């Protein structure tokens, strides 16, 4: 117990250090600009929360983007009506998303397996369509909810006329690099809570549900409250992520709730390693990196990259690789996803573990045993 506790602390310290030093070590990858790092942190948080439901209980929700969107709308409305301070926005984002998660979870969790997935998908699609057209006065539909000059903002002092104030944390601007540090701190707290949940008796219950729900019921446990709480908690994580999206960029659009966004978080979690602590964050980072960096490569950049080669070869290589960058980044991601699922079913974390076990021959037997257990990381 003590040694595992020490390992947890070590993991947390390493994780926190890695997150907070991202502006330095992401430089060589061309990803050390605030917007992308904010996205790493926010979607990492989203995936970590999703993993509490999917990784621990095995219930695959296809509707988590709905909570992300709800969190964003709640946060933007807090900016519009109350104040540009981010704390109320984050608070309302989490609470409103948690409330939605309770409602949807209460109904969806009456079924399990694929029926549960379909129910969540249906609810998310309903939320999306509501936000897109029916609730246009609240959500501003396709255009997205934006701040305007004449919003009331009752708690704020009258801002300078002629410009919309930015989001702040008691005067510290929440865009750019400071916004990233805010998201990073929230991510580390979220990671810490997720770690505590994994190790708690509550987490143990969830894992038991994953391994055999029937047996749980036969031994006299009522599994429903545990499932509902797991669902609500992961919904609140999604709402937190959604409100952070609004904090760093005060705009909420309906496409955030679309089913593709729900599918994306499933991909992130599986890519990184479902049921592991760090995996979902890695998966989220990888997908966002591809989406933002690979999609920005155009032929001009490729020609520069291959400029050293003879002309004919250069053009051939540029022609070939240009299929996989720019608009073709989905293709690269798809290939990568296939490779990982086929060769590393446990995601990136399984790869990390295999590499780790190469170096620790003596401990390899114990490692391989623990790797099948759900709490392995």
């Amino acid at each position, binding site marked *: 117990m003590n040694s595992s506790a020490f390992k947890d602390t070590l993991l947390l310290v390493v994780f926190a250090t890695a997150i907070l030093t991202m502006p330095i070590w992401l430089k060589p990858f061309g990803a050390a600009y605030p917007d992308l790092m904010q996205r790493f942190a926010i979607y990492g948080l989203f995936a970590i929360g999703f993993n509490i439901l999917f990784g621990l209980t095995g219930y695959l929700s296809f509707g988590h983007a709905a909570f992300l969107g709800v969190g964003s709308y709640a946060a933007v409305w807090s900016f519009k009506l109350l104040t540009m301070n981010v704390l109320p926005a984050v608070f309302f984002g989490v609470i409103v998303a948690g409330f939605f998660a309770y409602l949807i979870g209460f109904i969806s969790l009456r079924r399990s397996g694929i029926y549960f997935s379909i129910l969540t998908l249906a609810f998310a699609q309903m939320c999306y369509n509501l936000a897109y057209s029916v609730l246009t006065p609240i959500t501003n539909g396709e255009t997205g909810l934006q701040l305007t000059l004449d919003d009331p903002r009752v708690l704020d002092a009258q801002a300078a006329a002629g410009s919309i104030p930015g989001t702040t944390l008691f005067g510290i601007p929440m865009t750019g690099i400071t916004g990233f540090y805010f998201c990073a701190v929230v991510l580390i707290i979220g990671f810490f809570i997720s770690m505590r949940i994994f190790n708690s008796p509550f987490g143990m219950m969830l894992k038991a549900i994953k391994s055999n729900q029937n047996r749980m019921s036969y031994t006299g446990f009522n599994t429903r409250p545990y499932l509902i709480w797991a669902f609500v908690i992961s919904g609140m994580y999604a709402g937190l992520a959604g409100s952070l999206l609004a904090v760093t*960029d005060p705009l909420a659009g309906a496409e955030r709730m679309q089913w593709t966004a729900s599918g994306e978080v499933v991909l992130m979690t599986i890519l990184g390693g479902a049921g592991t602590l760090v995996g979902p964050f890695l998966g989220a980072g990888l997908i966002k990196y591809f989406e933002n960096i690979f999609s920005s490569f155009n032929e001009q950049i490729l020609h520069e990259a291959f400029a050293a080669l003879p002309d004919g070869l250069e053009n051939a290589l540029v022609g070939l690789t240009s299929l996989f960058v*720019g608009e073709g980044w989905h293709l690269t991601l798809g290939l990568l996803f296939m490779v990982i699922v086929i060769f590393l079913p446990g995601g990136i974390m399984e790869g990390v573990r295999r590499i780790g076990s190469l170096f620790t021959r003596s401990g390899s037997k114990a490692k391989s045993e623990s790797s099948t257990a759900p709490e392995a990381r």
Partner: protein
Amino acid sequence: MSKLTKKGSQWSRRDVLKATAATGAIAGAPMFFTRHAYGADYLNNPGDAGSVKLGFNVPQSGAYADEGADELRAFKLAVKHLNGEGDGGMMTTMQPSELKGNGILGKKVEFVTGDTQTKSDAARASAKRMIEKDGVIMVSGGSSSGVAIAVQGLCQEAGIIFMAGLTHSNDTTGKDKRANGFRHFFNGYMSGAALGPVLEKAYGKERNAYHLTADYTWGWTQEESLIASTENIGWQTQTTVKTPVGAGDFSQYITPVLNSGADTLILNHYGKDMINSLTQAVQFGLRDKQVNGNDFVIVVPLYSRLMAQGAGENVKGIFGSTNWHWSLTDAGSQAFVKSFGQEYGFPPSQAAHTCYVQTLLYADACERAGTFEPCQVGAALEGHKFDGLGNGPTEYRAEDHQCFKDVLVVKGKENPTSQFDILEVVEVTPRAQVEYAPDHPMFAGGNLGECNNGA
């Protein structure tokens, strides 16, 4: 778990957390404090660098991808011409012009591109990448008003100039106008004002119109504008139905039209959506019907050659309006069509035209202001009058940063001579007829606010 604090007495978890946070903050501090340290006078100041970067943010996927691809071609061509390569295109016909063909203010023009995916979120992420990572001094692009408005808001907050590409919603320079945003393209109100008299002449005063409308800011404002102008000539508005963008299949929206009693269908759709809905409407036999003693007709208020090409035969005889068309015979249009055709082998679309023009106008404004500083560039654009860019005399109105110029009413050609020769210009509606007051009700509620240079 909880035993750790007792065992490791000198380092509790809380201490570890604090220390980590402190380390991180110290490590990251230089980034934060140096961010604006260089060229502190405005964001992304190129300073002494030999080149300057522009950001072209266009849809490369989604319902408006065709327009996006053509916009990107035009941007590349504009950059070529600015750098003194190629034949110069409309730089030779633009009046007045300070452009010298040596880049902008002597700096070579470079560009970065991004995919908006026709989604506000993705577009803002892509624009942010350009501003934060690539250090662009101006962002241009569009093809969806929702996206254009979102990116315009972002550029205002960040403090760089946004030169809107194809965006036709009244809101872009109406209720969502921003001091850092400028639009050359025309808008829904102008389409309505230009189409009204032409429709009256062609179809009479007694018509019953059914609207299918793309469900976002552009569709809403165009529908509003069209209803106002058609009711002004005595038409009735039967029903208006909102359809989602990128729906693909519009049959469920078109079937009800058949028995609605309406004799005119107004399609407030654009891009692939318009191609699909128009094609389906024709396939469902709408144009062969007779209602209330009238031939059933279809109107597409915002036309583009790319869309007409996609819809093929179905556009014959259908009225619409457009910002520019390649068959215009003025010197500017001809010069542009010639150099675009030489480069790519086919004529440019209106989307390409407006993006090309916006790039030149921005470059010219920088030359006139003598700086890239956004507020001075903006001031140089405000109230600027120019000619020779394909639309005749044009003015950037200072009150709302909207260009005012003549509007073309076009019609699908009955006997096209080539695959590009699909539209014929029916009427050039003079500027005076499409002009409106800055506080017109359809544009009210917005405020330019103050120019932001990001410092």
